[in-house]
């Protein structure tokens, strides 16, 4: 039997369960943010945020990603906005119920539901591959276009719902006064939904900032900060390349993805720190958007907008803006202070704020309301326009409030007039809002205005402007504690106030700069004992943070004591404080990076050539700053050339003549070397001439373009080695492949730089050769591997010298040699055609050599076996 007690008990249990759901959701939010914050603490430092990866290595700095994310979000929002606004207005104000409209609506719904990966794939194929000549492949512009496609429906739907909240009476009033549809939309609808539009844009901005899969597929990644400029580049259709639009650009989500992909390179705390910065960035954007939204929604309510979380936030934002704002516009004054001439002046004002043209009809609306409404409509107009937006937020925080009742009534009036949400029912009649009824006293003025021409005559404009001109030099009422009005001021007093506020800040800023300077000169430079880079960075940011905060507090107190915030000139005082803040912060930034100099971290700063990226890369590689903080392996010293743009090395002239050319094999001819159990067939089977090529630099997760010195080009020789014997055979090292042409010899170019690999990577790739990072000469394809990489510079072990000198050491079995001091997979070729080495060598040769290969020979020394050569032409 169901008793009432049973039922109540059941309800309680159910409610308890339901509240558990809510607790789960909120708990997860805090768990995620808390977990990521805790994980991020070891790596979070100003140094980390303000350094880009080109300096410290992959995942060791995120300034490039932050700049990239801002660029992506900003540009894609800018690109999407016109489309979104146009579509929303069309659908809400122009479109009739027909098939086309339904179709467009359906398409927008489809677009908003499209998985971002689909947009990303589309962008990859069309923008990155097909339109490479325009976008430059993986690039900022490709990412921006895809993001814009993705966020257009977001912005569009948000604007649509904002337009839905516009009070129809407002527009009808406009139509009734003879305005055309475009005038109504332009002058009534858009200003009214301005805050809604702003919210939409901010939400779109946030959506673009958080998107990751699209950027992974279209934007590429770059460890360098974006730079602005134009370069000649024949790869492009127009012959030039625009930076940063055509550059691969980093972004925070991609940086997080990198951290996930390269957990062996990037410390976990760095991954958390990047994620934390991303979270903060996106949440700040979203909260701002929602605060503005709740502002526009709540402003309709009479009390205050502080009755929700976002309302409170938004009040706080308003206060902050109010305090920082430096305006040259008069603050709104209470009604009691206005005289008749002022009102006529003010009537002009909102239009001055929003639009410069076609003001007459909107004036007529204002006059159409009762005189007491002039103020109200004016206020609301200000409120609904962007500049006025700030004015109206700040007004509550402003000192000279009108009496509370007056303020409330004003608020109420305009909010009822303009921000009332559309009623859902049909009983939406005007008699609920008596104040919108036009009083008979003003009907005559309506008639007057309607009789006028729609455009304001010169005379009306002049009469509107003249009082204002007259008013400007009028002195302020000294007794009034109101904020100073913006009239022209004597510079001397202003300057003095400015300096009074500014100088206290200059002192700590100077101290900070001094400390930064001291960190760079001998007595203090490297004074503190050896420490890791991250520790030094942490110290630097903490140190500069403490000094900065202390300096700021001191300066604020001092500035206040000197009266910077008092009197009529307080505005200038605020300017001074703001400027002081800025210079202290700038000094702090400088110090935070310079203070690492106190520590002896053991690594020299990379000499950075400006402008030329390959030179930058070369400098970076040469300095040995590796991504994972490891030092270059000693084997790196074996590499003959470190810089990617080495000029061809004119080597051993005499050796060319010592080898008889007559015996040269031609391309596709096979040469066999080895002994009875190790029969190895070597074939040079193709050549290719390339003006440039790319390789995938694993530490920075991006392509690096290699370009030859002027007048040179790349000659690529393909060759295949195949062991048809029973036992593993020794493979010649890559420096035994020498190219000869007319007495000049060329050694092959190291295709990727071994010093870029950490020991971990070397160990890993030694046993997982198939996973050798994707090395790609785009024009050739993907199946070949760099022969030099496999055989060349002994990346895997230090036993190179001994192996090279002897022909046939411990490899008597058919397996991988694991005998002595390690693995030598690069030096042995196992029997069987599936183990064949199919690779290529890259030579940098003059253009003249590449043009005609008939005199070009590739000489190969097979260790102790007899050498041979191929003629390449």
């Amino acid at each position, binding site marked *: 039997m169901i008793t009432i007690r049973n039922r109540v008990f059941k309800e309680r249990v159910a409610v308890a369960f339901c509240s558990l759901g809510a607790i789960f959701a909120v708990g997860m939010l805090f768990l995620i943010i808390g977990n990521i914050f805790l994980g991020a603490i070891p790596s979070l430092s100003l140094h980390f945020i303000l350094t880009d990866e080109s300096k410290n290595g992959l995942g060791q700095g995120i300034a490039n990603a932050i700049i990239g994310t801002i660029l992506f979000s900003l540009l894609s929002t800018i690109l999407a906005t016109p489309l979104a606004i146009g579509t929303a207005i069309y659908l809400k104000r122009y479109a009739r119920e027909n098939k086309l409209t339904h179709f467009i609506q359906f398409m927008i719904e489809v677009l908003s539901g499209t998985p971002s990966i689909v947009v990303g794939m589309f962008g990859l194929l069309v923008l990155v591959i097909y339109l490479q000549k325009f976008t430059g492949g993986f690039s900022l512009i490709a990412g921006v276009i895809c993001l814009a496609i993705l966020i257009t429906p977001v912005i569009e739907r948000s604007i649509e719902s904002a337009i839905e909240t516009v009070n129809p009476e407002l527009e009808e009033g406009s*139509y009734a006064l003879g305005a055309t549809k475009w005038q109504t939309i332009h002058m009534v609808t858009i200003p009214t939904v301005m805050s809604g539009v702003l919210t939409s844009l901010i939400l779109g901005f946030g959506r673009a900032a958080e998107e990751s899969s699209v950027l992974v597929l279209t934007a590429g990644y770059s460890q360098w900060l974006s730079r602005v400029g134009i370069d000649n580049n024949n790869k492009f259709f127009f012959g030039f390349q625009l930076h940063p639009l055509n550059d691969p650009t980093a972004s925070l989500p991609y940086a997080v993805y990198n951290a996930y992909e390269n957990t062996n390179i990037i410390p976990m705390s760095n991954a958390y720190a990047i994620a934390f910065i991303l979270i903060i960035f996106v949440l700040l954007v979203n909260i701002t958007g929602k605060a503005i939204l709740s502002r526009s929604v709540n402003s309709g309510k009479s009390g205050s907008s502080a009755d929700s979380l976002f309302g409170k936030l938004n009040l706080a934002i308003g206060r902050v803006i109010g305090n920082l704002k430096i305006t040259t516009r008069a603050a709104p004054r209470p009604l009691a202070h206005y005289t008749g001439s002022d009102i006529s002046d003010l009537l002009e004002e909102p239009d001055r704020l929003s639009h410069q043209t076609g003001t007459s009809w909107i004036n007529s609306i204002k006059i159409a309301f009762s005189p007491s409404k002039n103020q109200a409509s004016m206020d609301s107009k200000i409120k609904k326009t962007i500049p006025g937006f700030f004015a109206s937020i700040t007004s509550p925080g402003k000192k000279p409030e009108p009496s509370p009742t007056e303020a409330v009534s004003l608020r109420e009036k305009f909010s009822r007039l303009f921000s009332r949400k559309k009623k859902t029912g049909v009983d939406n009649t005007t008699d609920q809002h008596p104040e919108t009824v036009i009083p008979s006293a003003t009907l005559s003025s309506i008639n007057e205005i309607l009789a006028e021409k729609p455009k304001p005559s010169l005379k009306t404009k002049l009469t509107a402007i003249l009082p204002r001109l007259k008013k400007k030099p009028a002195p302020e009422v000294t007794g009034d504690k109101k904020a100073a009005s913006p009239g022209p001021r004597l510079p001397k007093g202003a300057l003095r106030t400015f300096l009074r506020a500014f100088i206290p800040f200059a002192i700590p800023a100077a101290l900070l700069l001094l400390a930064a300077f001291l960190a760079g000169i001998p007595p203090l430079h490297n004074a503190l004992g050896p420490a890791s880079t991250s520790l030094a960075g942490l110290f630097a940011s903490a140190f500069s943070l403490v000094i900065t905060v202390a300096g700021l507090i001191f300066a604020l107190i001092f500035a206040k004591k000197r009266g910077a915030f008092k009197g009529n000139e307080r505005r200038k005082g605020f300017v001074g404080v703001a400027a002081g803040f800025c210079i202290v912060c700038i000094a702090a930034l400088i110090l935070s990076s310079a203070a690492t100099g106190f520590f002896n971290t053991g690594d020299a700063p990379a000499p950075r050539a400006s402008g030329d990226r390959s030179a930058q890369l070369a400098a970076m590689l040469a300095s040995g700053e590796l991504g994972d903080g490891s030092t270059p392996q000693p084997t790196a010293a074996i590499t003959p050339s470190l810089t990617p743009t080495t000029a061809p090395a004119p080597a051993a002239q005499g050796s060319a003549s010592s080898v008889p050319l007559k015996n040269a094999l031609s391309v596709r001819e096979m040469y066999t070397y080895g002994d009875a159990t190790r029969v190895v067939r070597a074939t040079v089977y193709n050549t290719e001439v390339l003006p440039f090529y790319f390789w995938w630099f694993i530490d920075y997760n991006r392509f690096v373009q290699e370009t030859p010195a002027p007048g040179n080009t790349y000659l690529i020789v393909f060759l295949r080695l195949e062991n048809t014997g029973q036992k593993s055979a020794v493979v010649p090292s890559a420096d035994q492949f020498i190219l000869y042409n007319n007495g000049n010899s060329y050694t092959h170019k190291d295709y990727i730089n071994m010093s870029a690999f950490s020991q971990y990577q070397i160990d890993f790739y030694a046993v997982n050769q198939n996973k050798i990072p994707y090395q790609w000469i785009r024009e050739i394809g993907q199946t070949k591997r760099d022969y030099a990489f496999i055989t060349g510079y002994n990346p895997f072990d230090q036993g190179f010298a001994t192996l090279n000198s002897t022909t046939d050491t411990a490899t008597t079995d058919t397996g991988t040699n694991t005998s002595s001091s390690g693995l030598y997979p690069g030096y042995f070729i196992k029997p069987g055609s599936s183990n064949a080495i199919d690779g290529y060598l890259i030579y940098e040769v003059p253009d003249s050599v590449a043009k005609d290969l008939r005199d070009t020979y590739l000489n190969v020394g097979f260790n102790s076996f007899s050498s041979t050569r191929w003629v390449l032409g």
Partner: protein
Amino acid sequence: MVHDGGKTHQMITDKHDLPHLIFLCSAAVTGLIVILMFGFIFWTAIPVFCLEGPGFILNSVWDYSTDQYGIFLYIVGTLIVTVATLIIAIPLGIMTTIYLAEFAPPSLEKILRPLIELLVGIPSIIYGLFGFLFLRYVFRDTIDPVIGNWLGFIPIFRNLDPSGGINILLAAVILTIMVLPTIVALSQDAMKAVPKEYREGSLALGATRWETVTRVVIPAAWSGIVTSIVLAMMRAMGETMAVVMVAGNSAQSIPPTLLSPVYPMTAKMLNDVGTWAAVPMPRSALFGIAAVLFVIEILFVAVVRLVSNYARRSVR
């Protein structure tokens, strides 16, 4: 007076003024972008449809070297993850909604709802990283063994790989957190839109608040709730980044248990498209996956529209 947002006025004035044209153009461009994009995706996918026929969906062998492309396992992966997500997310979401809409004190609701909405704003890659770096270990060390021990007698709850942690369940939990705010926000709006009189009538008849909610409010708001669930489902199906990081990306067979890895369609696309976009047939196959995903998505959009149309009609 008819409040139609000024559409009546349009009849009177010139229909073909310049602003009208501009707005029409921008709307048309938006529509065209969608058509172009999906036309292009289908166009690219045609070769693989010709090659495989229905086998593209029904075969489970995906091998680039032999030019065999069957996405059955990936479809199954997506479906399993989505269904598991919904099984967790629907009860949780509706419970949360009921609490927020009906039982929570207004002051608490005003704090909780924005907080839950903040979950929408957290980038999906953060969810993935959170799952990959943190929740994975929680699952591997605590939750998976517990489920394996207690529910292991049911085949789908066996814990076959105790060292894993990355599995369907983890993906489903991560996706649940992601779609929860979608369900909560939309269903709460739907429940708030139920007229007060319905509730009052039910309460006046002696029903408890719980009975009112379950028997009056939820049936009245069902279309909104269904819409929210379908939208959540779409988000779960289309999610890429988080899923790539926590689903395990392995498609040997149909996953035997909930605690085994899985390879959803989106993850397959993301992992492979960068390498294979330059080769015609694999590219076509990958775009074939996108086309299939897109068709499923269009179906869902159509469902949402049907549901809302039906609800609108039934209200009238």
